[in-house]
């Protein structure tokens, strides 16, 4: 490997954390982002499940990239992703039944999370395995921290706690709106807007495609 191999790898990782963060910069994977972040724990669980799927799927896609005919590549990627989502779903249901129940149908919906298909198509299908792995890891971690941030804010204001630990005293009146659907949209909108304000950049207005 070239001497600058290390630099490329760390770049592949870091871009997912901030510069190309799937939630804050690319506005991808909105359904799970908004739906499960009524508590920090749920955000963390969804982040980890998605990270697992994106890493596994990207790695496999990168390994088999020369075997897949172009015309059926998307279908192939989707089936690979769906298989890993099934694994993650069964694992959660077996080991963490309460979290699995809280996330409900949003675990299977990881299949249509555009981040995963996006990484498979845009990165893993064009790069060697180790880079695909690191890129997916970066995206997964970037996605997770955004979910935990959103979940923590909503849980703090909606229940007065973070990860289930009481933070606010008895004087605090919970803002019910924060744990309702409206609160999810508003919180995320404000977070993205403020980040744009402070970094002086604008989100790329991509939809998933």
């Amino acid at each position, binding site marked *: 490997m070239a001497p600058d191999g290390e630099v490329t790898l760390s770049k592949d990782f870091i871009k997912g954390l901030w510069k190309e963060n799937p939630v804050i910069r690319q506005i*991808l994977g*909105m*359904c799970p982002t908004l739906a499960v972040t009524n508590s920090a724990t749920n955000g963390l669980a969804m982040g980890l499940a998605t990270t697992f799927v994106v890493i596994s799927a990207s790695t496999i896609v990168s390994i088999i990239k020369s075997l897949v005919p172009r015309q059926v590549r*998307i279908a192939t990627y989707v089936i690979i992703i769906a298989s890993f989502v099934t694994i993650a779903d069964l694992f959660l249901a077996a080991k963490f039944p309460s979290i699995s129940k809280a996330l409900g149908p949003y675990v299977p*919906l990881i299949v249509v999370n555009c981040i995963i298909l996006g990484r498979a198509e845009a990165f893993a299908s064009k790069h060697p395995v180790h880079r695909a792995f690191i890129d997916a890891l970066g995206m997964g971690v970037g996605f997770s921290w955004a979910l935990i941030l959103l979940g923590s804010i909503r849980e703090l204001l909606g229940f007065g706690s973070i990860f289930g630990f009481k933070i606010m005293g008895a004087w605090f009146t919970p803002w019910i709106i924060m744990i309702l659907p409206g609160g999810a*949209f508003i919180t995320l*909108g404000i977070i993205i*807007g403020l980040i744009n304000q402070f970094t002086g950049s604008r989100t790329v207005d991509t939809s*998933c495609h």
Partner: protein
Amino acid sequence: MEIILIFISAAIVNNFVLTYFLGICPFIGVSKKVETALNMGMATTFVMTLTAAITWLINTYILIKFNVPFLEYVAFIITIASLVQLVEMFIRKVSPALFRALGIFLPLITTNCAILGLALFAVLREYNFIESVVFGLGAGVGFTLALVIMAGIREELEFMDVPESFKGAPITLLIAGMLALSFMGFAGLLSV
């Protein structure tokens, strides 16, 4: 009566976009003009109703019959992808005019989480065939409604003085939040 309740619940009270956060990508991406929003909504409603019918058949006569529920996600996503492809070919053949209006939206629908979400919810709630189809239709109408309302607001927004850093996705999310709050008012309509 039950059927009407399912329809109203899916379309308005438990709106897919504003309550379940399904189909947010097109909601943000394709909501700049009312006309495109309406076409996208109709294409989605059409595919949703079909999907509800076909995934019900697949779930009942294949997955349950052969006792392979763990194949649910793989089976559903393949069904949806091939269904969208078929619908696209069919419309192109039968009505070129309709194809021009809906054609570009059809491929986008495959990765619309609302479609897979619909199939999963229908299984989860153990609807029968008719209920599933009505649920699909209702969800589609609800999706169209949310999309068109949002597009109408965004057309007006063009003339507003939105802070630079809130243009695009952030302001859309804020508006969606307020829409979600107002849709909560419908919750008193029925208790499903």
